[in-house]
């Protein structure tokens, strides 16, 4: 049985069949919709909404291109797992207890809300198809929008809202966008992207209250808001596992081992809901990105079928914001040396992070997809790169490694 019919749950079902599993597969999902892909919700789906009437408008199909009947998967939608009794191998649902032999947890994450905004009309989160549908009228009627959080989703939503002709203000408590994940050399040009798109970006200004029709900032200023979109992070959707026999970490994630096994026998965990120890990076990682929900299920399925594969991926994600493709691969720390590859004020550039031993730890790429593709392979084999060559955007990254 697989609980959670998002990317990770669906990929688990597909991987199990591909690897030859012939027994029953039940895929449980609490959303009423056929399983769908989330990244387009903040991109194509909204941009499509932003397109003037008559310009296409056919709607973007986000459903996974999977025939569950043909795959022999019993898809139970609109059914929520309420509790797990791992000792008895039973999942409790609204439709009664369901026994299992093997269980894969794939319940993903839910977006963090602003305190005190629960149920306030006009306040939106963006995680589900229903959330995206609720935002369409906001774009269609060109309401004045305040986005809380200058993260990935905030930037993507702001992109679509501007395209639709909304007046957009993005407020961020930290002093710059993405302050938790990227250094200033990278976030300074990003600030420029907001400005260029006509978005009013206010950093260092926490929200003190949300009122009907307005957002009040800590500095006392009031921003009129027809709609408020909150993008301040997500937490593993694991509340239903409390007391189940499956260990949860302080961050709420299911604690998996490097085989993606949980602490309960026969129970695996994949995707946004689980953390795992990375030998590559020497730390436990909780990754909320799509590629992790694609790769993890292959390992979990192989191990569920008796294999012994270690999960130690090179993390990867992409974002589409302000007309640019931004991609990041690897994992860096402040101790790594940053090498600029091209001018961050130009249209296309990259940044490399090198460890003390010269090994490529991570890259961030803006509209230079070839750098990303080469870097992913270099990082996977812990290749060293020559810093001078890596700094030269005319030299392919792969060549900078060969000569290091």
């Amino acid at each position, binding site marked *: 049985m697989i609980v959670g019919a998002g990317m990770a749950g669906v*990929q688990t079902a597909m991987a199990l069949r591909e690897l030859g599993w012939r027994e029953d597969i039940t895929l449980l999902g609490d959303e009423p919709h056929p399983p769908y892909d989330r990244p387009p919700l903040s991109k194509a789906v909204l941009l499509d909404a932003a397109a003037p009437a008559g310009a296409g408008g056919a709607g973007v199909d986000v459903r996974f*291109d999977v025939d569950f009947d043909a795959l022999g998967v019993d898809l139970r939608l609109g059914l929520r797992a309420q509790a797990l009794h791992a000792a008895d191998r039973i999942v409790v649902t609204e439709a009664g207890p369901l026994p299992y032999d093997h269980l894969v947890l794939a319940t993903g994450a839910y977006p963090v809300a602003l305190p005190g905004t629960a149920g306030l009309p006009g306040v939106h989160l963006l995680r589900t198809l229903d959330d995206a549908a609720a935002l369409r009228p906001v774009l269609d009627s060109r309401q004045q929008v305040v986005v809380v959080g200058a993260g990935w989703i905030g930037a993507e939503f702001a992109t679509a809202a501007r395209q639709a002709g909304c007046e957009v203000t993005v407020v961020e408590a930290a002093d710059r966008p993405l302050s938790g994940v990227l250094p200033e050399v990278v976030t300074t040009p990003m600030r420029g992207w907001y400005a260029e798109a006509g978005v009013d970006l206010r950093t260092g200004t926490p929200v003190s209250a949300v009122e009907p029709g307005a957002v009040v900032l800590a500095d006392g200023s009031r921003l009129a808001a027809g709609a408020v979109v909150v993008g301040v992070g997500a937490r593993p959707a694991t509340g239903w596992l409390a007391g189940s026999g499956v260990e949860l970490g302080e961050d709420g994630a299911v604690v998996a081992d490097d085989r993606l096994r949980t602490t309960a026998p026969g129970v695996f965990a994949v995707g946004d809901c689980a953390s795992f120890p990375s030998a590559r990076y020497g730390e436990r990682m909780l990754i909320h990105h799509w590629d992790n929900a*694609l790769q993890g299920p292959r390992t979990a399925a192989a191990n569920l079928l008796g294999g012994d594969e270690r999960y130690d991926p090179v993390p*990867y994600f*992409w974002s589409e914001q302000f007309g640019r*493709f931004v991609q990041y691969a690897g994992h860096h720390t402040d101790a790594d040396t940053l090498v600029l590859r091209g001018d961050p004020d130009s249209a296309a550039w990259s940044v490399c992070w090198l460890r003390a031993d010269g090994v490529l730890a991570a890259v961030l790429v803006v509209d230079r*997809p*070839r750098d990303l593709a080469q870097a992913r*392979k270099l990082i996977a084999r812990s290749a060293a790169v020559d810093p001078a060559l890596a700094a030269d955007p005319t030299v392919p990254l792969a060549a900078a490694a060969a000569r290091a």
Partner: protein
Amino acid sequence: MTATDSYVRVCALGDLVEDTPQRVEVDGVPVSVVRTAGDVFAINDICSHANVSLSEGEVEDCQIECWLHGSSFDLRTGKPSGLPATRPVPVYPVKIVGDDVLVSVTQES
């Protein structure tokens, strides 16, 4: 129209850098032309998973890799070797005449 007539010159053989795809348009169809391992291939430039250009991807073992989510497509058959793409990308016949590379998009090979 015979099949031969539908071939269109897209570039000179000498213009193609080994393993570096070149994007061309043939009768309005975006095509990625790839010279690799002594052969030249033509594959539709749009990934079958999402709408991005395959010519920005890397070429290895007669496969072109999509740079966005990593599916690889066989340059001979267009078939994806792994997820997330599940559907093939059209591939087209190529003819080399002298130093000219010709592609026909009216027939998928």
